[in-house]
């Protein structure tokens, strides 16, 4: 019987010749990711009584969730992290303004294909875009990983999701993955390693692949992987400073499910409140008034996302009485967007440009909603209260194109591709 990709990655990361699905094994990650939660993690870590961290070069911390800090408590949080970084000699620390952890990690060449990336953030699944197994863990487990350099995993079953067809020009990876989540459901892939494949995936940009793997967390997946190909190699060239050996699933690997999707006739998709799997065509909810439009996050805050929005908004103004919040996913994204004139276009259209960071995605600071407000966002979650206020608020999720065209009209609008 052939092996799935996650089986092979776990074998390699556990130093074993063979692992079976369902078996529990100890796994060594290539990197352990965390963010503003590192202050709390550092306290748990020190209570465990370690003399040092397992490897200061394999701990990655980026400040992104409360950037710039909105009050002294959050500022103190950051200062605790800076002290910890100095004390233990952490080499991969990225301070405020560098960007969102899931964007910065690959940009800095710190995602190695065919390895395990553990992260203290549920969207660590993003790193599957580079052929790695990005597996989310909690804070205590991250502290334990910092101390021991390994933790246990159950070898998961896998789904193979094959995506066929060439979509219409108004369809983006966000539409496709929202459609898939709507079909599979919020818990449809719980404990599952998802492998994405098929002609649509082959042609997808690196950014689109990150959107896919990032959002797979919203169907419960343990991780989601797109195997390494020329697109991956082109991104990693000049970034990843070491040789890597891509792994691939065997042709006769056993999958718990094989699912096929055809994107040929897919229409723009939207996730309606208050669940990410509550997905329909945008046209079904067209006309709903929106107060806050949000472009950004680890899901859709990259150059290609802001560029699509800028092309739609060029020479136009967003509707009066609405706000357009723009959070580039990283400093690199911001600089490229500045060079390309994207930022100028977005500002002229009425956008507010913010520091590269998570922004109001999790409702912790800048850009939160007031009672009775509705948001249309490129982010990944639309739970009740997610954007900082639960009093009669609603969050809709869609592609950057849908957000941009809707901002022109101040209401949910289907992007037709013109």
């Amino acid at each position, binding site marked *: 019987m052939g092996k799935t990709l996650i089986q092979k990655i776990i074998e390699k990361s556990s130093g074993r010749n063979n692992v079976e699905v369902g078996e529990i094994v100890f796994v060594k990650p290539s990197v352990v990711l965390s963010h503003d939660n590192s202050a709390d993690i550092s306290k748990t870590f020190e209570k465990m009584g370690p003399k040092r961290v397992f490897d200061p070069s394999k701990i990655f911390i980026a400040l992104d969730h409360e950037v710039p800090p909105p009050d002294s408590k959050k500022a103190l949080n950051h200062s605790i992290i800076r002290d910890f970084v100095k004390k233990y000699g952490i080499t991969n620390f990225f301070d405020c303004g560098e960007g969102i952890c899931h964007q910065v990690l690959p940009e800095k060449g710190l995602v190695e294909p065919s390895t395990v990336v553990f992260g203290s953030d*549920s969207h660590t699944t993003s790193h599957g875009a580079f052929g790695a197994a990005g597996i989310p863990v909690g804070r*205590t487990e991250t502290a334990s990983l910092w101390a021991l350099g390994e933790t246990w995993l159950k070898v998961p079953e896998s789904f193979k999701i094959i995506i066929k067809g060439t979509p219409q020009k108004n369809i983006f990876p966000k539409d496709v993955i929202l459609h898939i989540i709507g079909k599979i459901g919020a*818990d449809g892939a719980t404990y599952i390693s998802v492998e994405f494949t098929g002609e649509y995936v082959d042609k997808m940009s690196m950014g689109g692949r990150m959107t896919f793997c990032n959002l797979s967390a919203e169907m419960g997946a343990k991780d989601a992987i797109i195997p390494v190909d020329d697109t991956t190699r082109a991104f990693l060239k000049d970034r990843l400073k070491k040789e890597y050996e891509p792994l691939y699933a065997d042709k006769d690997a056993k999958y718990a499910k094989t699912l096929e999707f055809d994107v040929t006739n897919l229409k723009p998709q939207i996730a309606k409140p208050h669940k990410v799997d509550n997905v329909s065509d945008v046209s079904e909810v067209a006309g709903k008034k929106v107060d806050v439009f949000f472009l950004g996050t680890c899901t859709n805050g990259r150059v290609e996302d802001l560029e699509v929005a800028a092309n739609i908004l060029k020479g136009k103004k967003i509707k009066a009485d609405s706000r357009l919040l723009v959070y580039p996913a990283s400093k690199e994204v911001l600089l490229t967007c500045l060079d390309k004139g994207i930022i100028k276009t977005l500002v002229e259209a009425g956008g507010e440009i913010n520091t590269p960071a998570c922004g109001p995605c*999790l409702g912790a600071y800048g850009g939160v909603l007031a009672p009775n407000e509705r948001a249309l966002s490129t982010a990944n979650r639309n739970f009740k209260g997610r954007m*900082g206020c639960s009093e009669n608020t609603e969050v809709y999720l869609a592609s950057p194109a849908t957000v941009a065209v809707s901002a022109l009209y101040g209401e949910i609008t289907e992007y037709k591709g013109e």
Partner: protein
Amino acid sequence: MEKIKGKIHIVKDNDVNTDLIYAGKYTYEILTPEEMGKHTLEDFEKDYFKKMNENDFIVSGTNFGCGSSREQAVTCFKGLKSGGIIAKSFSRLYFRNAVNKALLVIESPEFVDYIFAKNNGENLDVEVDPNKGEIICEGKTFKFAPLTGQALEIFSAGGLGEYTKRKLAAM
């Protein structure tokens, strides 16, 4: 592990997510478990924590704890000294965090269906035996799969913090 006797509180929904259990705005303040407890399920129902006494259980549907990795959505129940969560199923990350913080999480669709079918199941008494995998309620016994292997080792140590501490001390 000892048997736990407490009352149940019903959160009659599926996909009860971590934002509802513990709102994002509190996640980057360092709070004690007791302080976290006061924000438990706040966006689901204001002052929810006031309903919960020591050893009380939450009863909910499928995919409980989906969403964020935030461990406070587990720790807040520890702060309330809750008996644990009984659900039809849990998100992977919530289940793992619960084991790591030694919060009892029980998958029993039969029990949840039994409670959800009632008009007034709120505040019913239950007795839970984590070793045998039994919930006793109104004289009926509902079986569940007790923890085993690595998860049981971590839970029995009092959570991953204590487990790692012991492991480091033995190195």
